């Protein structure tokens, strides 16, 4: 039986299929799609599944960006059955200091997602390389597994902004009302990737975030901007928020106007607004509203 399997495997030219599935040249697009489909088919065939997945994982160290993207797409399509093969090789970082193989493993595991990736991925959140930490947090977020939540808090204070961004992204995917203080803190972070991730997290939590957000208004212009960005999506026009349409910062006023839908209030804002850009913005906004 083993002998037969070897013969079968030898008959399939995996390298050729792989090269074809990752061709860069536009004139071979049809062959590329067909090779891609064939690799998926093989991975889903019980006879070839392990061989195919192991073969694909063995290319994780590639330096070529298009191969990395193709590998991600292939293994994402293969899905859960690919996890075991990837996790088995996850400790191989790659042939040089770039840790390409490990980062690819984390990327692909995240794209597949699910509870079963969390343990393997979480081992790398304290890695010495920021790229690896960032990839690990992103994968944890993409897992959509509540099991990942407990690993995230440390990353929120990472000194590297892109790692914080990934940790906040993960938090935005998994947070409950317990994490609202962290997310509000993120609204004032020095890196916009963090601020916008925090916005997404608060929007996902919903109405429960409203009061803590209102209480946090006034600490900094930047944070106010994002607080209003969230508040108007969550709860529409509340009286205590409308008082703030006289916020001294035009960018904050603009984001408030952006959230308002009541034409009477908007007209009142137009009357009091002195900034020409914002006046024109309000005129346009009023014209667009029914």
């Amino acid at each position, binding site marked *: 039986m083993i002998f037969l399997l070897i013969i079968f495997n030898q008959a399939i030219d995996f390298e050729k299929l792989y090269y074809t599935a990752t061709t860069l040249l536009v*004139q071979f697009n049809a062959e590329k799609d067909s090779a891609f489909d064939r690799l998926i088919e093989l991975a889903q065939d019980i006879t070839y599944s392990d061989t195919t997945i192991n073969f694909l994982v063995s290319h994780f160290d590639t330096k070529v960006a298009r191969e990395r993207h193709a590998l991600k797409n292939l293994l994402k399509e293969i899905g859960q059955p690919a996890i075991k093969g990837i996790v088995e090789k996850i400790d191989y970082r790659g042939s040089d200091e770039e840790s390409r193989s490990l980062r690819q493993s984390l990327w692909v595991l995240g794209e597949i997602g699910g509870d079963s990736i969390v343990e393997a991925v979480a081992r790398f959140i304290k890695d010495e390389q920021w790229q690896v930490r960032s990839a690990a947090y992103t994968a944890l977020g993409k897992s959509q597994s509540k099991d990942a939540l407990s690993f995230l808090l440390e990353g929120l204070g990472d000194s590297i902004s892109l790692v914080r961004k990934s940790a906040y992204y993960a938090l935005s995917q998994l947070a409950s009302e317990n994490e609202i203080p962290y997310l509000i803190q993120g609204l004032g972070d020095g890196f916009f*990737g963090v601020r916008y991730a925090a916005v997404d997290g608060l929007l996902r939590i919903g109405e429960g975030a409203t009061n803590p957000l209102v209480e946090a208004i006034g600490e900094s212009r930047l944070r106010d901007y994002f607080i209003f960005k969230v508040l108007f999506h969550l709860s529409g026009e509340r009286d205590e928020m409308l008082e703030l349409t006289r916020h001294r910062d035009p960018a904050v006023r603009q984001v408030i106007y952006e959230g308002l839908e009541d034409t009477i209030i908007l007209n009142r804002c137009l009357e009091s607004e002195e900034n020409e850009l914002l006046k024109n913005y309000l005129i346009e906004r009023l014209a667009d509203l029914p």
Partner: protein
Amino acid sequence: MSIVLFLFAQTWLTYLDSSLAFVGLTMEDIAFRSDYTIRDPYRFSIVDSLLISPLNCMDFILSVDSTFWNSSEVKMFKSMVELYQLRVEDDRREFKEALDECYQLIEQAYSETPQGLADVFHKLTVFSPEMTHSIDEERENEQRGDSLVNFLKEEGTTVRYDKLFTAGLRLLSISQRYKEWFKNVDKRSRSIEDVEGAVVYYERCEFGDIVIGDTGKNIYKRDFAIIIDLGGDDTYYYGEQEGMIHMLIDESGDDRYQGDNYSIACGHFGVSVLIDETGDDTYSAENYAIGCGVFGVGILIDKAGDDRYHGNTFTQGAGGFGIGILKDEYGNDIYEGALYAQGFASTYGIGILGDRTGNDMYIIEERYIDEIRYLDHYLSLSQGFSIGFRPDLSAGIGILLEGKGNDYYLGDIFAQGSGYWYGIGAIVDGGGNDNYIAYQYAQGAGTHIAFGLLIDKQGDDNYVAKGVSQGCGHDLSLGILHDREGDDSYVAYDLSQGAGNANGIGILIDESGDDSYSVKKTHNTQGYGDFRREYGSVGVLLDIGGEDGYRLGKDRLLWKNGKYGIGIDWQ
């Protein structure tokens, strides 16, 4: 000068700062990192610092522009060498003694360099215009390319660049003061082999032959180390340059320079300087020619006349592991190339094409199909462009500096202020009503951790491109199109006019004039940033003055396109 630049920068930076606030961004958000990948030994340190503070690239390019036009050529060259974090000095020795010293410096520069380096670079950068026939061929080419790049990476450091650039500086200096020596030489009319017409001086030296042609017509049938021609309509036929020092001074006449590969002010494992003082001249060659430095220094200075420059690849101010400069002072000129041309830099290279005045045409011919993206578009990789060998070797600094005149720029894919992989590509155009036409990755486009800038200071200009252009940053790159004055027209199809993509930053700034902004796709143009790697890209369209027309916006209005894209017409 620096104060003026500072004040100028303040204006648009202040507007940019205020504009970013409307999408919840600060100036600190306009930043990248220098350690996305492991640093290769050939990356310019200026690229590292600009990745940390990307907007400083404007001051950097404007300072290069200012030095290029306002300093002596020797000083300009020294400032370029400083970008390698090297210092070179001229010791102003007597003519022949200085040439001997140049020769020795060059020998020292390559004393540990393996033979194969020249071939390897050639194989990586000069290729057939034919399309790839099969996927197997694609793979074979890739594998061969990998092995060549590895060799280049390993052996490129064996060149002593301090010695090489010192030799380049010394030869440039000699070329500017040859008359001190010339007036004392014994000039007698004679004829010599390989030169038609009268020669007034001939000498054989260790570094090569010195020839001085008289004021009549001469035809030089081979390459000599030193040619000084006193006038007449001359013809220079080049074989492939063999010696390590080349200096050609032509004092007047409508001249013809005819070469093949490695010719006409090409520093290829050597240094070469060509100065043509006056006349309407024609420069025609193939690859690595016309102000080209490859593991060397090549400088061509044409001071006057309506000139025509024609080459194929690596031409007209092109540098790779060296410096290539083409400087044309006066006249209406035509520049034609096909790839890696007109202010182009490869790895560890600086390539500058500067043209001070005249109505000039910059044409990139359609010869090398862009088979990665299209079956009916062509790679230009030219006109203020820089590219390395991703992911192994960083790009360099490729700049096209235009002074005054109504100019015409034609390219296709990657052109007109565009950078790729840890490098800088830029155009600075000083004045005149200019036409910029390209298809993609053009007109201030940074791609894959790089900088692409187009700065146009004056004139009513037309910008036409399809996409990823006109202030577009793709993949952790910055693309800026900055037009300071004039009634301008911007036409694009998609992902342009202040567009950030894949965590890139794209900015279009128009400071004044009544402008028109036209696009087909409104969802990713005129101040647009997409979402990638779980965070945003930044796109800004900033119009600071004039009565303008938009597809998306209006005068004195702000609009948003995506979470991180903003368009603002301030006045």
